[in-house]
């Protein structure tokens, strides 16, 4: 079986070979090879023995993939071949340079710029709040505000573009 599995921004090719015996699978992920024994403990729990070391993995479907817990960490694992071609990504603030979009569902508290304003990279544009915590969304590059697409008290979610900025000196044109 072949998969392309994406975690955060990293997509890796995964090849899984049933290695004859019933409860064993050999995995090749990128350059690494893993020998894996397994047992489904319950619908949401696997007992894996990976190269001799036992781990308990928990998993459940959600969003566009599966949430998987191993060794104290949880990951959203997505099948890259089944993802919509382009969609609003859940990213850190620096990672989607053109978008001024909130990282989580939140409420707009304050809009600090107006249409036509010149803004500098890193300048605060909009303050949003969720769970009593305020976060300032900042300008991703120097530019001019061409549109403000939200209002104070609006409920906004990741993927919503709140401010459009025309880059002043685009590097790739």
């Amino acid at each position, binding site marked *: 079986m072949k998969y392309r599995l994406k975690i*955060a921004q990293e997509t890796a090719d995964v090849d899984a070979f049933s290695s004859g015996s019933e409860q064993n699978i050999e995995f090749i*992920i990128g350059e690494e090879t*893993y020998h894996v024994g397994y047992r489904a403990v319950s619908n949401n729990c696997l007992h894996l023995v990976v190269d001799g070391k036992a781990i308990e*993995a928990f998993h459940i*479907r959600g969003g566009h993939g599966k949430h998987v817990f191993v060794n104290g960490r949880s990951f959203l694992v997505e099948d890259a071949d089944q993802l919509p071609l382009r969609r609003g990504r859940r990213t850190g603030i620096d990672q989607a340079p053109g978008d001024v979009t909130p990282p*989580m569902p939140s409420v707009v508290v304050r809009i600090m710029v107006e249409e036509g304003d010149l803004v500098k990279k890193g300048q605060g544009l909009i303050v949003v709040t969720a769970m009593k*915590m305020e976060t300032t969304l900042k300008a991703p590059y120097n530019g001019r505000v061409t549109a403000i697409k939200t209002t104070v008290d609006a409920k906004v979610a990741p993927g919503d573009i709140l401010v459009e900025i025309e880059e002043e000196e685009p590097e790739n044109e």
Partner: protein
Amino acid sequence: MFKKILIANRGEIAVRIMRTCREMGIQTVAVYSDADAAAAHVLEADEAVLLGESEPSKSYLNINQVIIAAEKTGAEAIHPGYGFLAENPDFAESCETSGITFIGPPSRVIRDLGNKTLARTMMEKAGVPVIPGMLEATTDPALLYQEAERMGYPVLVKAVAGGGGKGMRIVSEQEEMEEACLSAMSEAEKAFGNGSLYLEKCVESPRHVEFQILADQHGNVVHLFERECSIQRRHQKIIEETPSPAMTPSLQDAMGNAALSVALASGYVNAGTVEFLLEPSGQFYFLEVNTRLQVEHPITEMTTGIDLVRLQLEIATGKPLAFKQQDITRRGHAIECRIYAEDPEANFFPSPGLVLLHREPAGPGVRNDCGIYEGFEVPVEYDPILGKLIVMAGTREAARMRMTRALESYVILGIRTIIPFLIDILKSSEFAEGNTYTDFIDHNFRDWTQKMEDADLARIAYVVDEMTSSAKPSATAKERGWPTPWETLRAWKI
């Protein structure tokens, strides 16, 4: 003792208070908002009263509604927990005038100590050392800029009515001052209904060390030793421990006595916490008094063997303290980690939503004060604290290892939490060595990112589940009868 009390709070702290009530044979009344109809504290209570809409001002901060709920259910007393109305002197006063016992200090004491500048003046008079700073709060930004120039940067902007880092900003240079003041004012106005700010000189590399105090209605005052709460992010404590790695017997005496002076100077009654900053030199400064049960109270309970909520209730009924300072002993070492619903991979932005899977750590010396359960939707309206994981062991090192094991076995899927960040802190040599200062995170974990070593293991688990799930269909949230996370975030547009 009371027959029935109302708990004017939600989540883990309301559940924790109710557990002691049940053990004392006291009936409990929960209050809740629309968003919390199936919250853990509602399930734990003997009765529950709807206060109103999810917005805190329309429910948990609505003094009238809370008083009416108490009167309607015949609750003789109200425990305010922490946050919300816990340090609101008007609320305490409303209880007093309605003939309901407020489980906490008298409204006058809350009012005095809640005014940070008045408290500073009071403590200076009582001989307790305080940090240089403004004695008057203001809503005039110009006055704040001027004071900051005079004191010299870095300065600390603080809300006069503040607490828990709300309305607080460190400002290291002039350019940041304007936005810092405006946003702190807005936050403070929202959180406490009072946007007044004042400035303090920034003490460099301090530890945050606080003393738990207990005072009865008969003038008896004791402290229950210190808690160190230096590990903070955005001025929010995330890890607390006791004893403080910096503590020495003589320092403990000095700070403990200062804490008792604070209690006596303010006429304190019930449980409270005296916060200090402790410099590497051993010099310490009074910061403020939190006039309520502290989030991190369990580490004191585990090391002293004293149930603080039980004592709060006993003190509120007028019972004198059954022990003196010298009767109180501390044993072992306890650490608490706060479990916040924040995404460590997205700048720690809050992560509300549906808890799809929840497996709690267990074992000797492990306590999980938890306000969520599998299938619960964590609301967007309230603090991101889901609960607190607490451990105790014989030594600091044993407690550190125990906490690491406990964190590594704590499964929460569906929403993001800071658990991986906590694990990395616990495992760091700086934490292991006890080098815990309030700039610990900035200094050691500023550029922290999620470790990806285990990503391949996660991919393996994904594939094994795919390959075996034909025989055993993987239950999705939907199949289990729950709405998906995006459906449950009421009225968000996507």
